[in-house]
């Protein structure tokens, strides 16, 4: 299950982003990566898939034990965050061990926990919501009576999409800081986390 979920996640997450760049930057440049119509279509499909995946993700976390990974312990949080940052900034270069190795009860380090929670709760929902609104551009004005409200929705969508693409780049990079460079990518596929024995 895990591997498929991860792959599905990749597909639903990547496609909108690639396409966003295509859709957003195409007409200025004369070179189009993708035919514009195709880009729009896949973006719509992938965006809808992302929305569906999100519902699945929230439901899954509510119903399973997985949500414990998102329970932040506020006591001493600052100190722990600081340790994690220090590890990324210097400890890692000196080959020090991870300050918060992944465990069954605690998959994420404090920094990851905080970031993932804010991405999942603060970034993705508005992204999906604005995206859904953009699928039906005329309804918004019908409902709210505010002319050109769609422009602000579009700008919000773009901003959040951009932030989430920053997140993705960092996320992918941070994944290379596991036990070995490739171990985390491997564990995404087979679902097991490898630790030094």
């Amino acid at each position, binding site marked *: 299950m895990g591997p498929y979920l991860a792959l599905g996640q990749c597909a639903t997450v990547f496609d909108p982003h690639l396409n966003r760049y295509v*859709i*957003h*930057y*195409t*007409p*200025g440049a*004369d070179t*189009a990566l993708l035919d*514009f119509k195709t880009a729009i279509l896949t973006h719509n499909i992938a965006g809808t898939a992302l929305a569906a995946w999100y519902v699945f993700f929230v439901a899954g976390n509510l119903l399973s034990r997985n949500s414990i990974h998102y329970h932040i312990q506020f006591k001493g949080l600052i100190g722990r965050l600081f340790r994690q940052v220090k590890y*990324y900034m210097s400890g*890692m*270069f*000196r*080959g020090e061990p991870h300050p918060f190795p992944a465990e069954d009860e605690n998959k994420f380090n404090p920094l990851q926990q905080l970031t993932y929670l804010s991405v999942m709760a603060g970034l993705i929902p508005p992204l999906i919501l604005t995206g859904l609104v953009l699928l039906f*551009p*005329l309804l918004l*004005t019908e409902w709210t009576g*505010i*002319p*050109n*409200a*769609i*422009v602000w929705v*579009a*700008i919000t969508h*773009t*901003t959040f999409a*951009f932030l989430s*693409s*920053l997140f993705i*780049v*960092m996320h992918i*990079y941070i994944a*290379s*800081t596991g036990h070995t460079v490739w171990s985390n990518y491997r564990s995404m596929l087979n679902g097991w986390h490898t630790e030094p024995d």
Partner: protein
Amino acid sequence: MNRHNWLFFLFTLMLLPWAVAAEEVAVDTGDPETIPNTHCLRCHGMGTLGYRDKLTGNLVTLQISEAKYNTSNHRKLDCVACHQGGFGTYPHPDKAKAEHLYCIDCHQQDEKIQPYHFLKIEDEFKRSVHAQKHPDEFSCFSCHNAHKFLSSRGVLDDEPEVGKHLHREVLEAVTYANNICMRCHDSPVQLLGLDPDSPPNFLRAHDWLPNHELHWRKVRCIDCHLAESDKLLHEILPAEKALNDCRNCHSRNSMLLGKLYLYSTQQSREKYGFVNSVIMNDAYVIGMTRNTFLERISLIMFGFTVVALGAHGLGRWTAFRRRGK
């Protein structure tokens, strides 16, 4: 009737209050003919009515499409309001047939039609490539048919508030305007009548433009072939001066806003705001809602992130190698 008589006709018309229903115009000008349009359309409504021009060999149709006539700007006029001089009888008298009508003759100082600036349009037309290169062959009627003519503002409302317009949809206006040009430029045959040696090569000239078909459907030829400030739409420039910068349209301050979408979206704009009204007219132009400031900031931030991560990775790699030794 010669030009002077036309001026006289105009003069009489001007004395009449314009509120008088158009049908009565013919009667009140003293013209003896009060012939209903149906009389003329009995013959001129037939698709087969036409003749072969002895000179060019082209088929010249004399059919007047009733449907188009009734949705045109002139729909309220009797045929004989314009075609005077005895068309009520058949065969039509030679005197009547010798008559040449010209838009400007009727529209020179007509208050109601003032907003169209006919005289300025005429000046522009005279400076256009067409009139410059072929002054004898080209006239308003090369492009306009008085029986179908429909301005981009649509037709004036029937009801009191003058100035309120029934708008045409954008796409309709585009098709209407482009058909005018396509009639000649899409078929070399039509052009041959004028310039047998070097008909401009329409398709090759637009090779640079992606997806012609879509552009032909969504923008007017004249949106590219006029000077950008030309709001009167008639000074068609030589080809080398045509607009070829995508950004003129595909950008936030797209020039289409001031031109193509100027009239046709006014009503929906009041109701829905500009961007929506354009979307609604099925003409959402990519790039028009772009925000270049945000775009630049985001590219810079993205660049920084990638560079920072790259540096971190490099640091790890060198540290790893040093430790390995």
